C-alpha cells in the first residue's frame, strides 16, 4: 500500500473484510439447519479475539523497523501504558484513547520521542 493513493488490491481487501463482518455477525443463522460448533472450537472462541488484538497491538507499541525499540525514549511505550491504566481505572475505551494521546502528543511532538 502506498500512502495516500488508492489501489485495487486494498479495495479488494476492504470488500473481503466487509464479507468477514457479514459472515461473523450472522454465522449461526446463515444456514437454516441448526448446528453447533465442536466443544474445543467453542472454548477457543474465548481466547482468539484477545490473542488477535494483542498480536497486532504489541509489535506496534514495542517495535520499530522490525526490532524491539532499544531506547526508553519512545512515546508509544508510555502512551500505551497510560491508556491501559486509564482503562482499568474507569473501564472506558474512549478515556483510554484520550489519556493515551494526552501522553503521546507532548512526548512525540514536544520531545521528539
Amino acid at each position, binding site marked *: *500500500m*502506498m*500512502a*495516500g493513493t*488508492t489501489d485495487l*488490491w*486494498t*479495495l479488494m*481487501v*476492504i470488500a*473481503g*473484510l*466487509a464479507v*468477514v*463482518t*457479514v459472515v*461473523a*455477525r*450472522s*454465522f*449461526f*443463522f*446463515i444456514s*437454516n439447519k*441448526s448446528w453447533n460448533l465442536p466443544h*474445543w472450537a467453542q*472454548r477457543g*472462541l*474465548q*481466547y*482468539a479475539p*484477545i*490473542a*488477535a*488484538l*494483542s*498480536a*497486532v*497491538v*504489541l*509489535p506496534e*507499541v*514495542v517495535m520499530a523497523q522490525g526490532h*524491539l525499540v532499544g531506547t526508553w525514549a519512545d512515546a*508509544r511505550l508510555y*502512551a*500505551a501504558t497510560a*491508556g*491501559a491504566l486509564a*482503562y482499568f481505572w474507569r*473501564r472506558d*475505551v*474512549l*478515556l*483510554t*484513547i484520550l489519556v*493515551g*494521546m494526552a501522553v503521546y*502528543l507532548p512526548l*512525540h511532538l514536544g520531545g521528539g520521542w
Partner: protein
Amino acid sequence: MFFLRRHYTHPEFRIGMNEMWPQAPGIAAWGLMTGVAMVKSGMSVVESLAMTLLVFAGSSQLAAIPLLVAGAPMWVILATGFCVNLRFVVFSLHLRPYLIHLPRWERMAHGYLTADLSYVLFTRRYPRPAADAEGRRAQEAYLAGNCFVNWASWMLPSIVGIVLANFIPTQWGLGFAGILCLVGILCSLASTRLRIVSAAVAGAVAVATWALPLKLNIVVAIAAAVLLCLGLEKLRPATQEAPS
C-alpha cells in the same frame, strides 16, 4: 432494517432508537477517531471511505490497518479480522432463535447491522425470542431502530474524521489513536485469567516471530495462544472461567 416500512412504522422502532441514543456520543467519538486513524496511517480518502461504509466494524478495521500498511497477504488480513470479530459469532448463536424465521437475506442484513451495543440492548430488552408473529415483528422493529441509531452515529463522524484528517499533518502521529483504541478493547476483553495469558502469549510470540514473511507472525501468535490456553484448560478443568 431501518429501510423497511414495516419496521420504521412500528412503535418499537422508536423505542429501539431511544434506547440507543444515550450511547451515541461515545460511538461518535470512536467513529471520528477511527476515521482520522485510517487516513493518518496512510490509507487514501477513497479507501478510508470504502472501509467505513462497507466493513462497519471498528476493531477489525483498526486491526487491519497496520497489516495493510505492512503489505500483508489478503488471507492474513481477513483471518485476523475474523478472529477479532469472533465475539459476533458467539452473539449470532444467541440471536439465531430471534431471527431464524426470516428469509436468509433479511437475517444476514440484520446480522450485518447488529454491532456490540445493539446486541447488548436488544437481548436486554428481549430476554426471550417472541412466540407469535406480532411479537416477532415488534422485536425486529426494535432491533432495526436500535441499529439505525448505532449505524448513523458511527458513519457520520467517521466520514467527518476522514475529511478532517486531510488537514492534519501526518507527523502529529494521530494514527496512533487507532492503536490506543485497540489497547482499550484489548483491556476490556481481559476478563479471565486465561484470556490474559492468551494476550500475553500472543503479544510475545508476535514480537518474537516478527521476522516471518507475509505477516505470518500474527497467525502463529494467535494459534500459539489459543492452543496453549486450550491446553491449560485441560490441566485445570473449568472452575471459574465463565464466558462473558
